[in-house]
């Protein structure tokens, strides 16, 4: 069981690695953002699995937080790619 979990951990890490490749080569900015988003999602899994491995509840908050922040980062980055200005001051209309 532990072996299977370890393999899962490795696979998730590999997925991150591949996403990192996409971040590095791009070619477009949204490509990279997609990849970063993917890294975030995989990190969620990674932490979840690791919690099982360590048999601890200590990281359950971390899981949630990773998810939240990956989302926030993605929104921010997408905004930046789209508009440059990610926090607008006034209503558009």
């Amino acid at each position, binding site marked *: 069981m532990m072996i299977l979990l370890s393999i899962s951990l490795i696979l998730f890490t590999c997925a991150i690695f591949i996403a990192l490749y996409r971040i590095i080569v791009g070619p477009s900015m949204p490509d990279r953002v997609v990849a970063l988003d993917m890294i975030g999602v995989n990190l969620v899994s990674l932490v979840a699995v690791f919690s099982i491995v360590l048999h601890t*509840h*200590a*990281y359950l*908050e*971390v899981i*949630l*937080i990773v998810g*939240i*922040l990956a*989302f*926030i980062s993605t*929104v*921010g980055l997408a*905004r930046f790619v*789209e508009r440059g*200005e*990610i*926090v*607008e*001051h*006034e*209503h*558009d209309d």
Partner: protein
Amino acid sequence: MKINDVILKTVVKGVVLIILTLSIYLFLSGHHTPGGGFIGGLVMASAFVLLFLTYDVETVSEGIPISFKKMSAVGVLISVSSATFPIFIGQPFLSQSFGYFDLPIFGVTELATVTIFEAGIALTVVGVVVNIILSISEGSNKWKA
């Protein structure tokens, strides 16, 4: 074509509620599980950040009419004052105390002065982070004009 953000905005409304709840949970439970004033404050601040990203500064300010600058100052004031308070009862500076109280509804509950201290920290964090983002976006506004 104007950007129609309806999907994002709708989802974020719900998401922010989750984040805010989580932040309060993290703040309160920090004494025994991961969390605490800093983390709670930061998570709460990140909820505001998400709001700013999704909506615009004016809308958010109208929705949450709080002076974040004052909030941060009050936060520091609370943490420093709670640290100073023990001096007046002859204890060393920053002495924290805790006890277990049997409260109705909540049952036996631990109450610690450190919570006040950490509340100050949390307020500071939220106030500062939000204030920074507000300042910058306000600056950009002036710069454009």
